[in-house]
Structure formats: structure tokens, C-alpha cells
């Protein structure tokens, strides 16, 4: 049976809070008191969740039966939904870095904005952002070459730069505009941008799909026009110019066919 835990910010931290325990997986099976006793880190000090948040309700028996509602100002709270595998999370206000990082399942809805590195190395589940997303959405951890590999990220607003870097699978849909460097080094996955894109689209990418409905400010010289295709996106058909790239990179063969990153720009 689905149970709901509500955590409400009552004492704003002076520093940023590293709250990697705020997830249905950790909360599952715990009472409000137990949840309030979980560790969070403020700077180099270990504190309890209850020092900053008022905790009400209780968690379900498993992560899948647990919904977390995060209320109040969490602009200085990192790692909401860290490594979650199931259940739900609703974040009512704007959150800091790493929302849904290493997420494997379940659903997160952020009603406002999220800062950088949301959906980092995500493997599954759904991450819905109703405001704007920061830079490095759905990318690999710093230095790593294993980015988002599954699941779905939907941003209703705009997204920042370097989204989908080292992406290997899954889908990112941005209703608004994006900044530079989407899908750098990507080896799979799909990025749909309903608005405009800037430059360096799919630089050094090997495989995957990028679909841009709006304008592209500057095209990459490493992409080559091949044909015009009709695609059906969200039930609507439209014509797109089709490019392949990045021609400066190595490309794998699959069943005798060389695999490329496909860039589709709406005509």
C-alpha cells in the first residue's frame, strides 16, 4: 500500500546539504522518527535530517510503496532521489545538484527548477522537470565514460549546456531551448529538443539520435547531410533534414552497417 512521507524544510542550512539518504529506498520501512534520525552532511559535519526538515507521515514497506513529498526551500539540498530504484518523489520547489542521480527506477517530479547533474548516469525510471534543468543533465559522472543508459527525462522548460554527455541509452526530451554541447561523446540514446539549440551538437559522438525542432545556431563541421526523412514524434509527422556524424570519430559496425549519430533538424 502506497504511503506518503512529507519532509518540509524548517531550518535552512548555512552550507549546502548532501542529502543522499532522501530516497524511497532508504525511507522504506521507516517511521517519521527514524527518517528524521537519518544522516545528512552539512560541510564536513554529520547531522540528522530532522535538524533541517520536519518529517510527517510514514514510509511504505518497500521503496515501491513509498512516496516522498519535499516541501519548502531546497535550493541548497543535493542528491534528492539519489540511486532510487522505485517509488515516487515530488519536489515542490527548486532543488540543487544531482536530483535523481544514478536513479534506476521509480518516478521523480520536480515542480520547479533543478540545478546541474540531474539524472546523472541514470539507468531507468522517469525524471520529470516542470521548470528548467541546469547543465550536465543525464551525463556521466566527472571523468567517467558511462553516462545515462536508460529511463526517461522530460524537461518542460529549458536545459543548460552539456546535456546527455556520454549518453548510452534512454531518452531526454526538452520542450524549451538548450545551450551548447548536447550529446558530446554519446554512444546511444535519444535527445529531442522542441525549441532551439546553439552549437557543437553531438561533437565527438558515435551513435544515437538527436532531433531538433527549432534552430541550430552553428552546425558542427563533422556532420554530413545525407537525406530528408519524415519522422513521427508524439503522434505528429514532420519532415527533417538528416545528418550523420561525428565524421571525425571511429564508428562501430553493426550487421555490416556503420553506425553513426543521426542528427535530424526540422525543415
Amino acid at each position: 500500500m502506497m504511503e506518503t512521507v512529507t519532509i518540509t524544510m524548517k531550518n535552512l542550512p548555512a552550507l549546502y546539504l548532501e542529502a543522499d539518504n532522501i530516497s524511497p529506498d532508504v525511507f522504506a520501512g521507516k517511521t517519521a522518527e527514524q527518517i528524521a534520525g537519518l544522516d545528512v552532511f552539512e560541510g564536513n559535519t554529520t547531522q540528522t535530517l530532522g535538524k533541517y526538515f520536519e518529517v510527517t507521515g510514514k514510509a511504505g514497506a518497500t521503496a515501491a510503496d513509498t512516496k516522498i513529498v519535499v516541501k519548502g526551500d531546497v535550493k541548497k539540498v543535493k542528491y534528492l532521489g539519489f540511486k532510487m530504484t522505485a517509488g515516487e518523489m515530488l519536489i515542490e520547489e527548486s532543488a540543487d545538484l544531482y536530483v535523481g542521480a544514478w536513479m534506476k527506477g521509480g518516478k521523480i517530479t520536480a515542480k520547479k527548477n533543478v540545478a546541474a547533474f540531474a539524472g546523472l548516469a541514470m539507468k531507468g525510471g522517469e525524471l520529470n522537470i516542470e521548470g528548467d534543468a541546469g547543465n550536465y543533465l543525464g551525463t556521466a559522472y566527472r571523468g567517467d565514460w558511462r553516462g545515462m543508459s536508460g529511463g526517461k527525462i522530460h524537461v518542460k522548460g529549458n536545459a543548460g549546456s552539456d546535456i546527455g554527455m556520454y549518453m548510452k541509452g534512454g531518452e531526454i526530451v526538452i520542450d524549451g531551448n538548450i545551450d551548447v554541447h548536447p550529446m558530446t561523446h554519446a554512444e546511444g540514446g535519444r535527445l529531442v529538443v522542441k525549441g532551439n539549440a546553439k552549437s557543437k551538437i553531438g561533437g565527438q559522438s558515435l551513435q544515437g539520435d538527436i532531433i531538433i525542432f527549432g534552430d541550430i545556431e552553428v552546425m558542427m563541421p563533422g556532420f554530413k547531410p545525407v537525406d530528408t526523412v519524415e519522422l513521427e514524434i508524439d503522434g505528429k509527422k514532420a519532415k527533417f533534414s538528416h545528418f550523420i556524424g561525428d565524421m571525425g570519430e571511429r564508428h562501430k559496425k553493426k550487421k555490416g552497417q556503420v553506425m553513426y549519430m543521426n542528427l535530424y533538424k526540422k525543415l
Partner: protein
Amino acid sequence: MAEYLIKNGHVFDPVQGIKGDKADVAIKDGKIVDKVGSSAKVIDAKGMTVMAGAVEIHSHIAGPKVNLGRIYRPEDKLFSCTPTHGMERMGGGASIPTTFKTGYEYAKMGYTTAMEAAMPPLFSRHVHEEIRDTPIIDEGAYPVLGNNWFVLEYLRNHEVENTAAYIAWLLKVTKGYAVKVVNPGGTEAWAWGLNCLSIHDPVPYFDITPAQIVRGLIEANEYLGLPHSMHIHPNDLGNPGCYQTTLDTLALAEGLKTHNKFGREQVMHLTHTQFHSYKGTNWADFESGAKEVTDYVNAHKNITIDTGNVTLDETTTMTADGPFEHHLTGLNHLKWANVDVELETAAGVVPYIYSPNISVCAIQWAIGLEIPLMMKDGMRCYITTDHPNAGPFTRYPRVFKWLMSTKAREAQINAFKHKDKVLSQTSIGSLDREITFYELAQMTRAGPAKSLGLSAICGGLKPGMEADVAVYNIDPDKPIANPDDIEKAFSRCAAVFKSGVQVVSNGEIVSNGHKRTLWVDVKTKENAQVKRDISEKFVKYYSVTQNNYEALGHHFVPNPFAIEVDATQV
């Protein structure tokens, strides 16, 4: 200093030939002694295994290429950090741990001495700063010499005496321990975009071959009578068919005898033998050459080896074999870093995942185990992972488990995706030898200590030796029900003493000890030519002055332990 008496443990000490007898080990003033007074603190080791502190002969744990790995692999620290607790400072990193974590992890497994296997002389100051910041364990570092311009120029004309004088000077200014050779000539060739894949490939410009470099460095090493022998990573590492180059390299030591006062018997130490024991012509027909290589080493007493066991982990490869790392990044397409070290050496770094689902990795795992299982004399074959190249050193307990239990090996073989290929390309399935506790003590203590010329100091429990002692919570008299118990016991010692100070208790660090830097101080006859050559090279080529080259004083080597060698009478 406190006195200790480790009572009733099963002692394994190849130095004294003790094979698991119940005995007491007494410690006083930092040394092993015959007996201690009644006030000595008693450690009850009943039902436990007692050995000397283990000695690591080849590991990459300090210096610029290790740090380059740390810098360019932040993901190696992801989820592997430990916060400050008790005596321990914070640490992190799985395959390239921070200096503090390196010291703690070695000590917790009962290691008390470790050798950094490749020190670029120009960066010896950096190496020593990291050694200084690695607590507990005594450490030394081997300067790399197989691609050094002085060495190439002297040995081209077979000037062994000048080479020896240069080595003596270099050991002094870099506070180095031994003569290390990595891909002789090949790394210098790499600066020209080339490589030396056989011992007869000429080195560009220098007009010398790897064979001449290796033979000349053995002669120079024995001219000086250094504690350790020439320590070699041969040409053609890691390629199918490379075992032939390995055999050619080993044959260069044929007939050469050692000359030293340290009890060392070999003239050549072949390192990470696993990487040099490959047969086949490509990655599809890749197979083990462990039998050919160990047959040769078994028959030649003037060679010692270490294994380089693949541990099936994600790790970071790093070597002064620059061309090999470039080759490797071409195979796995992961990030590559390369460094050139002026007239001395180079280095490359590439992450690597030894996956049990890839047949080549599984065969490499098997070759690494075949080597010690095929070696007849545990005093001449030492366990290493060539940390971090074949796997992190923190996996030693798992390697011990595979070596000590056929059951554990079978379980791993059955877990491989390409089990049949592992069995057809290696003989791991037919080897039923299980390494005993005594042989393990040879392969991890007495053996490497003897090879390093440290047999009077460490690697044993004879009265008068350093009180480096490890107590493991495993009873060698009882049959081992679950091989994982071996791994567990060797992972976290019940107690560890370093030079008579208890540094580990119940698997936790209880003291940072008095860590020392081992180096070799050789006195030679004045050699005006070499002196002039050195100052000329600094003026003409080096980016630093000779005055800024030496690792000198308390900042770099706060607690030196010099091993004296007198080569003035040669």
C-alpha cells in the same frame, strides 16, 4: 619501547624453516628477540597464523603517473571514500587510492614494506613526497634506467664502469633503491613514434639494442653489488606471442653470476610475468605461455619473478611503457594520458576493465595463477598484481584464495562466460596444486625480501630482524570449509607490528608507526668523466638545473634508511 609476546600462534617462517609449529614471537626495541620479560604485553594468537610482515616487490603507489591517474580518474574515487575515523585520515580511490589509504590498506593486510616500481628520476622529489605521506609501511623506489640517455650512450660503447658510476650517482640524488628497466629502448623509441618489440630492434638515434641495454645494466648492477638485481619489464608486453621475447630476454642472464653481500642469488628479476607469457598470434588464438616461461625460470637459478595477477576488476593501467599504453587505448577506446620525461623515460595511463565476460581477460586471469602454481621454488616467485595494472593490491587476499584453494578456482572458472575457451587455451583446469601457508610466506615475505637484498632485515621472524609481524585470524590446522574464509582472514589482520610498534589491531589502524624510506647509498671511486657528462647534460638538455634535481633533506625524505654499499674496491 613496549615489549610484546605473540603467544601460541601457528608460525610460518621460511627464514628459519618453521612450518606452522606453535611458537611464541617476542618483540623488544623494534626487533624480534629470543625472549622478553614478564611485563611484556601478550597477544593471544591461539588458533591463528603468524607470519613476518609481507614485502611488496612491485607496485605503483607513488609519483607522477600514479597521481596523473588520480587526477584524470575522479570516477575512481566515486563511492570508494572513507571518512576520517579513529587514527585514520580520510581516504579514497579504488585502483589508485590516496597515499593515506594506500598505507592503511597495505598495513591492514599485514604488508609492512612496499616498493614503488617506477620512479622517473626527474620527478623523484614528487615520488618522495608521496612516499612521505603514505603512513606505516617502509618504502623504496626504483628509478627507471632502461631508456635513459646516459645509459644508452655509455652502453652503446659497452662502458659498464661509467654506467655503474652514473647509477650510483642517480641512486644517491633520487634516493633510489634499485635499477628498473621498462621496455628497454622501446620507450625512447616511442619519443620518435616507434617501439622496440624484440630484443634486437635498434633504438633510433642511439644505435643500441634492448639486448645490449639489458645485458649492460645487469653487468653494471653486479659491478656495484647492489642489494636488488636489475628489475625488468621486457619488450613486447601484453601482445599475443610475447613469451618468445620474454624467453629471449631471460636468456640474456645466461651464465651471469651475482656479486653482492646481501644474500641475493639472482641477477635478473622479471616482473609481472603474466603480461609476458602470452602465446598465439592474435586475440582470437591467444593462449598461455606460462609453461614455457616457468620451465625456463625453474631451470635457471639466477632469475626471480613476480606474477602480476589479474583480479577481474575495473582498474587503471599505468606504465613507463609509453607505446604500450597508446596501443591499449586503441584496443579499449578509453581515455589515454601520456607523459614524456625529457632524457629519461615516459609514461602512459589508460583505465581498463578486466571483465569475466571477455575471454582474453579470463585467460589472463588463468595465466596469472598458472605461473605461481607451476613455479617449483616459492623463494623465487612472488605474488603481485603489478598494482594497479592487473588489479588493485587490495585484492591480494582474493589472489591468495585462488592460489590456496582449487575449489575457489573452479568456482571462478565456472563463472566465466567463456569457460571452455579458458580451459582450452590454458592448463588452469588441470592444475590441482594448492599453495600452502608456508609457500605463501615464501612468495610474499622471505622470497621478495631475499630478492631485494633485505633478507637480514625483513621477511622473517629470526631474532635480530625487524619486528614486522602479521597475525591472521585463520587456523592452518583446520580444514577450510569455505575458501572465502581465506580471503576474509588475509584482508584484515588480527594484529600487525611494524618495527615493534603495533599498527593494526582487529583490522583497525591503531598507530601510524615510524615509516622509513629505504634507499641505497653506494660509494664508488671518483669518476671525472661521468661527473662532467652529468653537468654537461644538465646545462645542455635538462629543463632544471642540477641543483634542483636532488631529493634532499627532511622535506622529501624525513626518515631515511640507507643501505650502504661499498664499490670503491672493485
